[in-house]
């Protein structure tokens, strides 16, 4: 074989190199031209990361700006099992005391399938710092907001609570979720080899928007007063449930709304659903004698009776439409005023039957808002039961005036009494004062709203005259009298219905306002089935009303109409 010449060898090398470079050039063309889009996307995916940021949920504050609910930053501790599986028992041993979890549970999670597993939610920053110091590979820490309620169970039924995704479930949290929930943002970032963000290469950045802050009409001090007094009543009378509402009759603002049983919104799952229900708006019951204000005010408004008109109360038993109607105490002839402050069922029924009539009574029931939702900004409100006139039976006209055959929420009863206190004007209940942004500028303001005027000012003043005597020694609620103040109110003791039958269990209630001449506050107290002897509204709910009223008048500095004589002597000395 003829040996290759120098020239041939050179040609061979050049040919080889040319082929190699051509192949390389082809590959480069393929990568940079034909697969450019795909590869550049892949490169970006390796380098870039989309980080989602949650908007902080807005705060809930009371009317004086005190914090009732806010969102705190906590962390989710997660792991990448593809990294942690090999060393899971050792990692679990290190993490268990910090995460307060059992080691076997942690081992199971650390060795699970996939590349992401959550180990624990709601871990505070200090604990995260301690875990980070352990320098365990394969752990991930994510931001999370934890809703906290610094006052615990205070006003829990009003405030409500949120679910695991920070979405409102109940109360204001649910009712005003659209204002409270923030808007999530995101940013596209690049990380270096150590996983740190290269800030200069941040691509897109749309910051999260925090939720708006909600200011309530509720005053946390008055709420506390109501809670303490209700707790005392629960301990004394052992009712199944209890409700106190404090409001301003002139504006319809709710200053306090307390229910028992109650719950802690920081841990709502630990309480039964029954305890989480806001009974002020979601529970209906026959109101009993407190409903007499409707028939009496209606009759006074129509001018068909005066306070001095007298009715024979049949000494405690009156037969109407084949059924006998009883009074708790036998009365002879009573004036309309006496019917109210003695709370005579027969008297109220006779006003309805003989003077007002079914059609007008029904008109007043609707005008006072019964059978309709009040429109308060709390979810779960029910409209109560007010049967249309066509469904009334012959007995209805004698039963409805004394608060039977009709069902109302405590809030509806409160607003009806407020209408009488407010010169006949029915106000819409207001529980949200305003919605503010982060700079404390009002985004929305909720003004008092006059719904309608069921009765005239004159009729309301006449009613006030009669209702003042309820808390007097001759009335049904002398224990509701507040020293130094002129109180107007009405007691109610309604028999409960179980399985379609009236049973010897009662709803005891008292609704009142003070000062009667120029009402500043109104208070409703209702106890469901008090046990231990006393069950009349005047004896059970009356003292609770007084307890709340004494403290609230002092807190709000409402001047007394009758300053105490003994105090004056002390002052002179």
């Amino acid at each position, binding site marked *: 074989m003829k040996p290759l010449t120098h020239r041939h060898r050179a040609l061979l090398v050049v040919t080889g190199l040319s082929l190699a470079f051509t192949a390389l050039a082809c590959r480069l063309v393929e990568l940079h031209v034909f697969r450019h889009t795909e590869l550049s996307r892949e490169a970006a995916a390796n380098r870039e990361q989309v980080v989602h940021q949650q908007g902080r949920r807005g705060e809930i504050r009371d009317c004086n700006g*005190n914090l009732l609910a*806010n969102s*705190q930053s906590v962390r989710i501790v997660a792991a990448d099992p593809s990294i942690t599986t090999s060393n899971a028992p050792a990692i679990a041993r290190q993490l268990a005391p910090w995460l307060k979890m059992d080691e076997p549970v942690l081992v199971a999670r650390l060795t699970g399938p996939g590349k992401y597993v959550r180990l624990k939610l709601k871990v505070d920053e200090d604990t995260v710092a301690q875990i980070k110091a352990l320098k365990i590979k394969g752990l991930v820490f994510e931001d999370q907001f934890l809703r906290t309620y*610094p006052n615990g169970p205070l006003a829990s039924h009003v405030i409500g609570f949120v679910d695991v995704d920070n979405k409102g479930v109940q109360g204001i949290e649910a009712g005003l979720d659209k204002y409270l929930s923030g808007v999530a943002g995101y940013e596209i970032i690049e990380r270096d080899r150590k996983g740190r963000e*290269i800030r200069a290469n*941040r691509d897109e950045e749309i910051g999260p928007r925090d939720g708006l802050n909600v200011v309530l009409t509720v005053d946390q001090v008055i709420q*506390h007063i109501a809670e303490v007094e209700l707790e005392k009543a629960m301990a004394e009378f052992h009712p199944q449930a209890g409700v106190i509402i404090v409001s301003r009759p002139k504006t319809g603002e709710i200053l306090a709304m307390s229910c028992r049983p109650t719950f802690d919104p920081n841990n709502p799952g630990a309480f039964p659903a029954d305890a989480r229900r806001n009974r002020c708006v979601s529970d209906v019951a026959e109101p009993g004698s407190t409903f007499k204000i409707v028939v009496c005010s209606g009759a006074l408004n129509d001018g068909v009776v005066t306070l001095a008109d007298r009715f024979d109360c049949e000494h405690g038993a009156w037969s109407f439409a084949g059924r006998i109607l009883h009074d708790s105490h036998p009365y002879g002839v009573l004036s309309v005023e006496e019917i109210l402050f003695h709370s005579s069922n027969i008297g109220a029924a006779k006003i309805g039957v003989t003077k007002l009539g079914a059609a007008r009574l029904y008109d007043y029931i609707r005008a006072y808002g019964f059978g309709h939702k009040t429109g308060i900004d709390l979810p779960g409100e029910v409209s109560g039961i007010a049967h249309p006139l066509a469904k009334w039976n012959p007995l209805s006209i004698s039963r409805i005036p004394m608060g039977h055959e009709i069902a109302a929420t405590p809030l509806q009863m409160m607003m009806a009494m407020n209408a009488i206190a407010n010169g006949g004007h029915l106000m819409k209940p207001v529980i949200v004062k305003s919605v503010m942004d982060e700079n404390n500028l009002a985004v929305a303001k909720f003004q008092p709203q006059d719904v309608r005027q069921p009765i005239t000012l004159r009729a309301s003043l006449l009613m006030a005259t009669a209702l003042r005597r309820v808390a007097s020694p001759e009335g049904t609620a002398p224990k509701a009298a507040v020293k130094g103040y002129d109180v107007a109110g009405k007691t109610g003791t309604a028999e409960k219905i179980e399985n379609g039958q009236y049973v010897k269990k009662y709803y005891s209630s008292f609704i009142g306002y003070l000062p009667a001449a120029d009402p500043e506050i109104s208070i409703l107290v209702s106890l469901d089935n008090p046990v231990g002897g006393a069950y009349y509204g005047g004896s059970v709910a009356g003292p609770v009303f007084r307890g709340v009223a004494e403290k609230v008048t002092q807190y709000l*500095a409402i001047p007394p109409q009758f300053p105490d004589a003994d*105090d004056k002597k*002390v002052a002179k000395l």
Partner: protein
Amino acid sequence: MRSNRKRESLRFGNVAKSLITCLSIAAIGVGYVWQKNQIYRLGDEIKKRETALTATEKRNTMLAAQLAQLKSPVYLEARCQQANLGLVAPKETQTIRLLEPGPEWDARFLPAVQPAAQKTAKPAKPATKVVASR
């Protein structure tokens, strides 16, 4: 000789031009790198401040909740009882109520203010001004 000198100066000029060009390119390169470095350094500074701001915001929220807890009526009442301060609400006779300017104030005090204003040497001020000056 002359042509030689001419060739030498031409060569020196070319070298100088090349040198200046090279230096300029190098300066641009170094400047670019320096600027890039500054951008990254500034980015890091921004990131540090962002992290600090977030941490401060988190701490503020936590402190706000703590403050709310400390200001809550439940806590204050418990503290009062613990400290046995014997605090009681003031009686009505221990309270002095100041009347806010308004119709009630006018009705009670305006008749007394107006004659006093008329006694002065200056012409009597309109009632509205007296009200405004209180």
